[in-house]
């Protein structure tokens, strides 16, 4: 039962990845969900319980901080990434691009092999 903190492994779950991306600029709960839907053309939606759970963990890990809302949204709490969170998200983008590259490479190699056999 050692899964209580997904951040210790320095690897973000898909949900944590998108949530951190949304907090590159300060956003409140509703804006986070909306942003992720728009960014991914509706492919990814984040449920409120999932969002709340991950926000608590990210705060504990010092990846994000709570800020005050501005203007009309003054009452609503906003969240944004810290330096530590920013580093984590940049590393994660790199890691995920490498993974995608590995996948493409494997597919290409497979195709070359197949052509060689013919």
């Amino acid at each position, binding site marked *: 039962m050692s*899964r209580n903190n997904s951040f210790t492994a320095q690897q973000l779950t898909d*949900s944590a990845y998108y949530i951190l991306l949304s907090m590159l600029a300060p956003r409140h709960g509703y804006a986070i969900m909306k942003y992720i839907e728009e960014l991914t053309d509706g492919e990814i*939606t*984040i*449920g*409120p319980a999932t969002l*709340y759970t991950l926000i608590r963990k990210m705060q504990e890990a010092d990846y994000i901080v709570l800020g005050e809302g501005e203007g009309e949204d003054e009452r609503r709490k906003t969240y944004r990434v810290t330096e530590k969170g920013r580093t984590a998200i940049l590393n994660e983008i790199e890691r995920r691009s490498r993974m995608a590259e590995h996948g493409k490479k494997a597919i290409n190699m497979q195709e070359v092999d197949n052509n060689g056999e013919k």
Partner: protein
Amino acid sequence: MGRNNKTRYMPSMGLAFVEESEMRKLSRLAEDGWLLESFAFLGYKLRRGERQKLIYSMDTYDLKPGEREQYYEMFEAGGWKHVCSHGNIHIFSASPDTKPIYSDRSTLYEKYRRAIGLWRLLTIIFGLTAILSYTLHYISLTNWRDYYLANILFTAFTASLSFAVPSIMTYTAFFIRQRRFK
């Protein structure tokens, strides 16, 4: 099932065992105009209201007083209205096309991990009390031959067992739920 014109009682078989089917039952009752109002002793209190299509979801969180508002606000942002809470159990309702409150397995796993905590503690406490009182009961019967003490200890044993059994059942049910999302 006690009922009058405005409120009605719905017994609960325990959210650890029948979470999904009870949430569905609450939906059916909302369609008949019986809306969940609060938790009641071993069940729910429903109130007569407008017939409407609603879905219900249960979440678990031990919230400090200052955390409640933020927690409910997050659900509201996702289209879920807070209905009632009891301890670390919270129930929300939404219109049927609303997206589920959990969108990935790892956070859903944690929902049940949080639910387990208290029940594990209760299982251990009542389980140990039951074992201890039965052992002492046996010793007082065979070695000490103190039948009065033996009777008291047996009463203590049955009492702790009557708490231990439901605790173990609830603990096991939440544990099985948690395993599904591992």
